């Protein structure tokens, strides 16, 4: 059995290699679903912005179906929605995505998961990918989500809840990522 290839850091010079035209914009005019913006900031253990991180997201469409052959649910695919996005942080550590609110997808067993966006974070100073999830604070289904239920402490669970604001440019969910220290984001062994 061949052994796993180890992870290595993305380093500070990935921007050309991992450039993605339109990577932050997951929607087209014909994409179905409620438009939302996701914005946040990556902070290190001193609370300083991380200006050289790469955030990747992967999510289901508005109906709760992933654009992937392993998802055989009887729900419609949206040809105008792939579900993958990529955003490199700016000098102030900020990242942003324009996307749609994902539908619910099943978890293990019979539990239905609350709407969520899967997130991978890479940066200089990280020898591996960090994995977390964005949930939406105003979703009543969060209380029955099997993954959120794995996190015993409410304050830690709250690190996965994006905060909603409604502005002139629509619904914005704010999701800051604290790599270390007070308010450290919950990361998953995926």
């Amino acid at each position, binding site marked *: 059995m061949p052994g*796993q*290839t180890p992870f290595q850091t993305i380093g500070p010079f990935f*921007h*050309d290699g991992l450039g993605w035209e339109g990577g932050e914009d997951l929607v087209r005019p014909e994409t179905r679903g409620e438009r939302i913006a996701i914005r946040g900031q990556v902070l290190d253990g001193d609370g300083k912005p991380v200006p050289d991180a790469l955030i990747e997201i992967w999510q289901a469409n508005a109906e709760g179906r992933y654009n992937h052959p392993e998802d055989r649910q009887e729900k419609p695919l949206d040809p105008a929605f792939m579900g993958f996005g990529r955003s490199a942080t700016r000098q102030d550590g900020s990242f942003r995505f324009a996307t749609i609110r994902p539908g619910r997808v099943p978890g293990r067993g019979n539990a239905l998961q609350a709407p969520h966006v*899967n997130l*991978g974070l890479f940066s200089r100073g990280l020898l591996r990918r960090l994995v977390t999830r964005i949930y939406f604070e105003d979703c009543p289904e969060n209380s029955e989500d099997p*993954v959120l239920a*794995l996190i015993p402490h409410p304050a830690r669970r709250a690190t996965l809840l994006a905060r909603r604001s409604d502005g002139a440019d629509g619904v914005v969910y704010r999701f800051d990522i604290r*790599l270390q220290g007070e308010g*450290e984001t919950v990361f998953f062994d995926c």
Partner: protein
Amino acid sequence: MQELPEYRREEPGAQPPALHPPYASTLKRAPLQATMRLPHSLSEITGPLWDSSHLRPGDDDLTRQHQGEALGERIIVAGRVLDEDGRAVPSSLIEIWQANACGRYRHDVDQHDAPLDPNFTGRGRVMTDEEGRYRFVTIKPAPYPWRNHPNAWRPAHIHLSLFGPAFATRLVTQMYFPDDPLIPLDPILGGVPDPAARLRLVSSLDLEASVPEWALAYRFDIVLRGHAATPMEG
């Protein structure tokens, strides 16, 4: 409910921890709380899939993306992408980036006092074929200094990013060259706990894949996570 496959977890010793003090930048960036084990649901066993529309002509030859040819030692890098069961991973996108033959990246943040090559961007993309094979042409990158500790130089390396079939199989890694004296001194490669797993990141000279009087080839096989033995009820 459909039966959901599950992916294997990390091989002990093969994957670096987040916190590795010899690599100083991990000190303020590595999470210190224990990670939560995520059960593999549809969210983890699906992921973005790619086709050749994501490739542009010339993406597989980093030496010929400009008017003139890139300076340096032309090399071929080739290998296979497999899973832990030895099965080929077809149609997997590989994104590539690297320094030039003088050890300099074309990047604003790179202030190393070494020349840029106007004929070398250092960016490529390839896709694996049905047998998981990939191949690209580039120049051999040079080592370059960094500020981790006095006289810290990164061994020559090429960055590679792979998706595989699922969110759970994502891999970003670096490929090194055989017989580089900087390899045992490198705190980034040294972050991999198991010395045998470290060696998996060192390519090998491949005369068979070399083109006589044109370029030597280096072989680099990549192993992504495989399916766990027993699929669980979905």
